[in-house]
């Protein structure tokens, strides 16, 4: 294949060295960043593939590529930069960027790189993902050669349907807890759990496959114990669902899958968990990177002749929208607000309980803890806790936030409320569980019939039932027995079931 991206030219290298220096001076801490320059087509390809040069074959990447290419061709959108969470950290710059843009983008990238390395939610991500993704691609391509492209692709389609049914808590499992859990599983299922050593993901998934083979062999050789096995297995499936929200994992272990199917499910689950922290920290991550490109540019790197271009670019990124929350804008403003509050000491019991408005307005303890505080925040929070803790009433007012709703009478979206509590709870709601409904496995042996029962934890917003039906269909294809989900529709309890032929709704 032709080299699609190339290293920085001399001029860009000089700029990179300069920006690198500033980033270090400000105390940013990151894995080495490798910058590459590529044309718009390549950057579209990379973006369509989630930032990685090699993925498994799937039409969805083609679809995203189609849309990105069109967006670029019609001048609707342009991707300035891409950066991926690996070590070394790879960052791609668009070759058509103006030099000022390249400066901004590099500063922005160092911000992301620092965030990837330090934020707690990224702690357990595999920094070797570049190679892992490539291996996944090779494995799946091999399965396609063996079992047919359509068949494998169809299976992937189904698994992608449950890609968001994973458990955010698992990102945080400590090694110790993980070990204990694995020990438990070992005892319960006499299965050699996925190894905890530092073997690569691909090797682990190979081992998984192998174990399955061996088990199958065992099974065949001892036909009589089959019945016993089945019974035992069923009772275990009933008893132990240690992470009910990790439905991908549950199906991986309990669904009647072929070995190659199980392998692919495992692969896609690994990838889903890899991308999960990024979905949990969109506002924080973009805000942090924006904070630093602004800081580095305006206090260090910017030349007088570049100010207009910089301002134009920065304003474009920060544009507020009446229809959506711009994570860059909210993020950067929150960090700035935190910095200001901790510099002036506007936090804590004393400040909050101060009822003298004049005093409050002039409050300044000159603590100068702001910079330190935001570094700490970027380390320990995710979007939900970030908003929960630092999104104050004053901030909300200053940012002119509002919620809107569709008004059927006028046929348009109208501002619903500017009330702080309403806005905050709506914002938190939209962020909780990375914006996905919370779904748990209730039972893998529902009514003692080996049926799968899922439970939607209803927090005020109904499911999209058309999508839910199609999703159930896909899960049925994996589980091969009737699949149900309990939820609420317009305040009423409802159970939606798909039994392989038709849908049934019971209230």
């Amino acid at each position: 294949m032709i080299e699609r991206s190339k290293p920085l030219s001399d001029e860009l290298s000089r700029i990179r060295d300069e920006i690198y220096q500033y980033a270090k001076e400000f105390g940013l801490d990151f894995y080495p960043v490798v910058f590459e320059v590529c044309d718009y087509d390549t950057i579209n390809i990379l973006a369509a593939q989630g930032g990685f040069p090699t993925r498994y074959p799937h039409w969805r990447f083609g679809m995203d590529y189609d849309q990105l290419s069109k967006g670029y061709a019609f001048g609707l959108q342009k991707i300035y930069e891409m950066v991926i969470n690996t070590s070394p950290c790879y960052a791609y710059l668009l070759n058509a960027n103006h030099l000022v843009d390249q400066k901004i983008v590099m500063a922005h990238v160092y911000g992301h790189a620092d965030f990837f390395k330090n934020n707690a939610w990224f702690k357990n991500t595999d920094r070797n993902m570049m190679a892992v993704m490539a291996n996944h691609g090779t494995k799946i391509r091999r399965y396609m050669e063996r079992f047919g492209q359509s068949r494998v692709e169809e299976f992937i389609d189904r698994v992608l349907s449950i890609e968001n049914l994973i458990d955010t808590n698992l990102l945080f499992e400590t090694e110790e807890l993980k070990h204990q859990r694995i020990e438990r599983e070992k005892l319960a299922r006499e299965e050699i759990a996925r190894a905890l050593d530092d073997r690569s993901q691909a090797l682990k998934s190979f081992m998984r496959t192998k174990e399955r083979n061996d088990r199958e062999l065992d099974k065949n050789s001892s036909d009589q114990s089959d019945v016993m096995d089945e019974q035992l297995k069923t009772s275990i499936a009933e008893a132990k669902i240690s992470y009910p929200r990790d439905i991908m994992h549950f199906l991986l272990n309990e669904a009647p899958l072929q070995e190659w199917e199980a392998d692919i499910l495992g692969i896609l689950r690994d990838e889903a968990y890899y991308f999960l922290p990024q979905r949990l920290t969109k506002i924080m991550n973009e805000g942090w990177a924006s904070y630093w490109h602004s800081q580095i540019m305006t206090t260090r790197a910017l030349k007088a002749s570049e100010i207009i271009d910089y301002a134009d670019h920065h304003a474009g990124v920060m544009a507020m929208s009446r229809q959506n929350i711009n994570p860059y804008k909210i993020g950067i403003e929150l960090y700035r607000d935190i910095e200001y509050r901790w510099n002036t000491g506007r936090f804590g019991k004393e400040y909050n309980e101060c009822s003298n408005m004049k005093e409050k307005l002039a409050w300044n303890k000159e603590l100068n803890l702001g910079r330190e505080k935001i570094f700490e925040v970027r380390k320990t929070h995710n979007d939900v806790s970030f908003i929960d803790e630092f999104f104050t009433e004053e901030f909300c007012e200053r940012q002119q936030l509002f919620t809107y709703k569709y008004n059927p009478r006028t046929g348009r979206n109208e501002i619903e409320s500017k009330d702080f509590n309403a806005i905050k709870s709506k914002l938190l709601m939209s962020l909780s569980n990375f914006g996905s409904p919370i779904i748990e496995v209730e039972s893998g042996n529902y009514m003692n019939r080996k049926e799968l029962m899922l439970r939607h934890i209803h927090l005020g917003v109904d499911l999209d039932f058309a999508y839910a039906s199609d999703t159930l269909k896909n899960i049925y294809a994996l589980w091969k027995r009737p699949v149900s989900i309990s939820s609420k529709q317009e305040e009423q309890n409802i159970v939606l079931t798909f039994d392989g032929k038709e849908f049934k709704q019971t209230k």
Partner: protein
Amino acid sequence: MDHPIKRDHARFRKIVKGKIRDNLKKYVSKGEMPSPKGDGTFKIPMPSIDTPRFKFGDKNQGGMGQGQGKPGDPVDGNDGDQPGEGKEVGNQAGNKELEVDLSLEELASILGEELALPKIEPKGKKAIQSTTNKYTSIGMTGPNSLKHFKRTYKEAMKRQIASGTYDFNDPRVIPHKRDFRYRASDAKVEFENSAVVIYMMDVSGSMGDEQKEIVRTESFWINLWLKSQYKDIDVRYIIHDATAKEVDEETFFKTRESGGTLISSALKLCKEIIEKDYNPNEWNIYPFHFSDGDNWSHDDTKLCLEILDQDILPASNVFCYGQVESRYGSGQFYKDLQQKYTESHEKVILSKIKNKDAILDSIKDFLGKGK
């Protein structure tokens, strides 16, 4: 080698085309016509082919925004600024409508496959000239990119042997400037088939908007198919009530006249157009007539059949009559034609179009014979 994503992309296009084929009936009967773009491709709106997931319905969701305003103010643009856009707002990601570009050939082949349309066998000789340049000869001058190495070295060797500078022990051939040979083009005249479609429509009072919409949709798809079969295609439009006139495409679909109907007037005009512009020996001629089947008098119908028999049928590949059902039409003309030509006539195809859902079947009636 191309980037593997091109294969993903091709795969995606294939899935999309399959979707369009599956939904062709819906597209056609809804009158949702692919809109042609300047470059000869068509834009087709499609429901997004999202992967289904558990997600929130957007019914009671609304959204959040940033900016000035008080409760009750519209969120999207200024009041009534861009009507029709309001509803898109507040959608979660992944809910965008997909628009697919397809070339005329791709779209036509979907239609062809779905309706199992046979390829048209053009009649007559290929009469329309077109010149193409083919690089079949060799010239002494030309650009470097067209340099013909083999011939160049041959010339050089010839010269060296003739001048005695060729050394068998050291067989080096060095071309001089006058040895260079280049590929050169020859103009080649090719003959193509070409076709003309003449649409005639009854615009008398009994043809309502819905009927016209049907004709419009049907003619779009017929044009599409014929365009894919012939290199050049002319389209002419005739409207008629008691008198007929030739109009442009826009007028054809917009006009609404009232008054009586003399179908013969249209057929007469059609005949004149053919005589004047299209020599039947050179052109494939497709007259299409759409009406609700009400003719003014029996005598006129007789006249119509006469014109058909003597002039139009001998000249054309096939004469198509589509009868659009209307509340006011008697549908008599269809019966008259049917009586005269029967179902199996070689050059007459009759089709009744009951409603929009029947358009696809009617297209198959017309084009299914491969004429």
